[in-house]
């Protein structure tokens, strides 16, 4: 398999940000009330991720090591601003639905995580494919969770009524805040089982590096993250 396809496979399946690495949980919980929102959020994150990987990789020899985090943040924040304006212009209803979560892509762990752990060390083209793979993996994850919540919570799929309300009573709680936690909890539990099965087979999955696990040592964002344990030294 050539290395570009390998990057795509890595992002979508092997190190899927939502299911395997468990990164970017704030948007995962917040915007997945429907499949369309999940897809929109995923794709906008993908665009930012590809462009930020591209720029950071291109400038990796210019940016001094000491100020790399502020530099990355400026790059990512500029891209997010551009994406936000494009969305407001061309998909105003989606932009209104996602609201404050679009600018908050800036603090999504996946983006700075990939910048720090991949784009800052690799040439431009592989970095772009890494961003594309990770972004599509994230989109896939968000859309799946969105589909589950939308079907259970409203009997709809991408806004179309697929389960007839004659016999199906929507479980409204799934499209509300608690449903997000519940679906994610079940997902984490299922992934725990899968993880165990794969380990028994001798093909262990990549361990989750996100905030959910509390395992911060392996997180790409460790130099500026919010919930780091090794700095807190209290637990």
């Amino acid at each position, binding site marked *: 398999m050539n290395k570009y396809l390998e990057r795509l496979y890595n992002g979508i399946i092997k190190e899927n940000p939502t299911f395997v690495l*468990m990164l970017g*949980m*704030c948007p995962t*919980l*917040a915007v997945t009330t429907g499949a369309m929102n999940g897809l929109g959020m995923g794709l906008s994150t993908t665009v930012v991720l590809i462009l930020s990987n591209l720029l950071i990789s291109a400038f990796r020899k210019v940016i001094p090591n000491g100020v790399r985090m*502020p530099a990355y*943040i*400026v790059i990512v*924040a*500029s891209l*997010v*601003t551009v994406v*936000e*304006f494009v969305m407001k212009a061309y998909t105003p209803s989606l932009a209104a639905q996602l*609201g*404050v979560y679009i*600018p*908050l892509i*800036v*603090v999504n*762990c996946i983006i*700075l995580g990939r910048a720090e752990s991949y784009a800052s060390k690799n040439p431009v083209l592989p970095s772009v494919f890494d961003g594309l793979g990770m972004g599509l993996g994230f989109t896939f994850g968000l859309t799946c969770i969105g589909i589950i919540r939308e079907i259970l919570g409203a009997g709809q799929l991408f806004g179309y009524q697929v389960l007839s309300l004659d016999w199906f009573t929507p479980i409204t*709680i799934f499209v*509300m*805040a*608690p*449903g*997000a*936690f*519940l679906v*994610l*909890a*079940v997902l*984490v*539990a*299922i992934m*725990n*089982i899968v993880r165990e099965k794969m380990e028994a087979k001798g093909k262990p999955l990549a361990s989750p590096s996100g*905030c*959910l*696990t*509390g395992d*911060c040592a392996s997180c790409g*964002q460790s130099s*500026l*993250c*919010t*919930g*780091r*344990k090794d*700095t*807190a*030294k*209290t*637990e």
Partner: protein
Amino acid sequence: MKTLLLIAIGSAIVNNVVLSQFLGICPFLGVSKKTETAAGMGGAVIFVITIASFVTSLIYKFILTPTDTQYLQTIVFILVIAALVQFVEMFLKKSIPSLYQSLGVYLPLITTNCAVLGVALTNVTKEYDILTGVVNGFATAVGFFIAITIMAGVREKIEYNDIPKPFQGTAIVLITACLMSIAFMGFSGMI
């Protein structure tokens, strides 16, 4: 005064920042194993968000609006917040060592907490003036404090429970968060 109070209650309880807006999930799940740690984190968040919403409101009103550069808000806010946290940490260390002792370790953890940026952006979107922005920031942070402290209390209790194996760890914490979120939905008729 009445509007301020309504905004405060709304941000702290009804639209709780963690349980209904999903901001600050990372520290909420990561630093909620012990009540004292959780309270410390909550205190630091109150401190930083209140100052950050004040400073970002000032910058928005007196720098970005007059120069017609509101579109730079995301970039400016995130940099200001990152710098601000560093300053607050240095200032506390030098001037109020006792407060630094209790909050200091948590301060660097808050730099890119999405709740801080989220509050700053919400203040701008809802066109709050400076005072309202600060009240909204403070109340949001109090909501975070309430949520993380309750979560830590519950986690201390369920630690020795007999939980099915796949649900141990993060999954049961998310289930707890789900139940807390349902409980907080009970406030939604208040305003």
